[in-house]
């Protein structure tokens, strides 16, 4: 019996990726940027758009969301910024955004998907369909319209946490695929998988960013909502380690991701790690502590009374077990090359 000499075709052998043509991660993308930002009403998006418009290297920004333009962006230069109200879950509407007259001569080159609805309050079938369809249509339209970089802002809630969680969670950490997780987490992981399935495309760098909890006025992240509660309620006897980021730092990281080459899944986190109680203490917040089994009930009562918008049932283990993201990979490829991005160097809070 003779062995067949033919090689089994692999993804690389199938020439989906030609290493010679793949740009080196961390190098500057050529030319000015023309960026599509989905979910432009989010605080992080507003922060990002303001910073990008301050940079001459950004030629044009198209902000898209449902509803009116956020007040903070009303005064932006209309030559370089356009706000469009559209339903991203509708394929035709998404397509139309790429076919705007203003984009005919100089089309968009980057899409940043920040439109994922992560608020557990009132999360029903509409929100679920919006998340699934917007993720699908945006990615699909980006690939069809020659976008060279697609960035999806996921969440650290995608990770499975518990007593076995590592002291620092890397990008290859276990994902929370439990059957009983909140539908938002399922949808987030599904959207990530869609992106991952396209990561070997040679013509588009598909990137997923998993930020740790984000601090900032009005930000709808779990950690921020917890800190804005009056008072935050925590379980007795637990004090998890966290390394939250801020909306300013996240906006800066997103700008790095937009301007520099690189694809794949990356954690992005804050500079400091410490016990949750120390972060509260630093902000002068005194939490109340209740026995673990009563936490859900107390949280529900607080929500009914308008004392919090934090949803303890969304990621129940979050207040018990540490989740410190290891963003060394992002640091190595993007933050260490920040000097190559003039837009970053001009920022007042540049690190």
């Amino acid at each position, binding site marked *: 019996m003779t062995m067949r000499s033919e090689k089994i075709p692999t993804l690389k052998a199938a020439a989906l990726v030609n290493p010679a043509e793949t740009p080196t991660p961390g190098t500057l993308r050529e030319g000015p940027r023309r960026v599509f930002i989905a979910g432009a009403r989010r605080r992080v998006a507003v922060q990002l758009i303001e910073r990008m418009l301050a940079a001459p290297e950004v030629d044009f920004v198209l902000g898209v969301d449902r509803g009116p333009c956020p007040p903070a962006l009303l005064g932006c230069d209309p030559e370089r910024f356009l706000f469009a109200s559209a339903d991203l879950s509708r394929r035709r509407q998404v397509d139309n955004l790429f076919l705007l007259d203003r984009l005919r001569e100089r089309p968009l080159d980057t899409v940043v998907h920040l439109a994922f609805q992560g608020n557990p309050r009132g999360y029903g079938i509409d929100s679920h369909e919006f998340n699934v369809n917007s993720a699908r249509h945006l990615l699909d339209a980006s690939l069809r319209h020659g976008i060279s970089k697609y960035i999806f802002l996921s969440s650290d809630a995608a990770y499975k946490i*518990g*007593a*076995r*969680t*590592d*002291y*620092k969670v*890397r990008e290859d950490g276990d994902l929370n695929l439990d059957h009983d997780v909140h539908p938002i987490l399922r949808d987030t992981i599904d959207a990530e998988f869609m992106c991952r399935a396209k990561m070997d495309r040679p013509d588009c760098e598909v990137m997923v960013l998993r930020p740790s909890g984000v601090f900032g006025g009005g930000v709808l992240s779990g950690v921020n909502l917890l800190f804005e509660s009056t008072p935050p309620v925590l*379980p*007795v*006897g*637990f*004090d998890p*380690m966290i*390394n939250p980021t801020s909306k300013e730092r996240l906006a800066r990281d997103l700008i790095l991701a937009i301007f520099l080459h690189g694809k794949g899944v990356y954690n992005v986190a804050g*500079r*400091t*790690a*410490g*016990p949750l*109680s*120390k*972060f509260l*203490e*630093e902000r002068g917040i005194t939490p109340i502590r209740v026995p*673990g089994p009563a936490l859900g009930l107390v949280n529900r009562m607080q929500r009914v009374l308008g004392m919090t918008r934090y949803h303890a049932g969304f990621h129940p283990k979050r207040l018990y*077990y*540490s989740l*410190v993201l290891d963003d060394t990979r992002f640091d190595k490829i993007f933050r260490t090359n920040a000097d190559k991005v003039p837009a970053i160097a001009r920022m007042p809070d540049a690190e």
Partner: protein
Amino acid sequence: MLFPKRKVDLVRPLLPPREWERIEAYAVSDAGFGTDPFGTDPDALGLSYAVGYWLHRHYFRVVSVGHEHMPKTGGAVLVGNHSGVLPFDAVMLAVDLFRYTDPPRLLRFMVDYFVYQVPFLGVLFRSLGQMPGTRRNFDGLVEEGHVVGIFPEGATALGKPAEKRYELYPFSHGHVELAARHRAPVVPFGLVGAEEQMTMLTDLRPLARALRLPYFPVTTTFPWFGPLGLLPKPVRYFIHYGEPIHIDPDALHSVDVRAHEVERVRDAVADLIHVGLETRREYEGPKGGT
């Protein structure tokens, strides 16, 4: 904050001033809030070392030999026997190593996961630099040059019945594989004394399963005397550290080599236990007693 500063001051009389100086000089790499990336809290260390030092010196009256085998810097793996129903042996080892190494080395154990599910206990362990036993945690600790303590018999060895005293349970292979991967020396130790601190009569397995514990002990004093029944007898501990064992890197590629290396470590631990038992016999003299 688990340990307010004033509580640390309360235990200050338990430590001689020069030991306080050592505690205060111990450098924790600050990750932002005074704790290191693993969550080690210097205040918690001070408080626990003060209590542990008192136990080490006055309660268990530890006699230890062979500290020179512990590398002064860099990662290392400390491997030995586990016993005593409650892990006072681990506490005494950590105190012993901190007390007799210069610069002081903090021993960080790979701890069973169940500890981190228990309110307060998990936070306490983490603030003392003790980590859940995952590979990544081991990697992180050794890469940052820490001494990692492993009990390869597992937590169940704590609940060893009296008739199996000083018999080693089978060793898990993880420590050898991880030590080989990081080229970290394995320092064996044998600990004698802990087996006698409590006498295990039986293990109530259904109750242990219900409470998610590795075992639920019934000893000669527990649960008959309530929580006080968990207080160990003030037996003298004898700790012997052996010469570092350098693991054959082929342990990463061959099951046979790995099994052989595990046996080598196990034999070294068994020998050190034997030496410890001999030492105790000589120490106690013909009359016996601890």
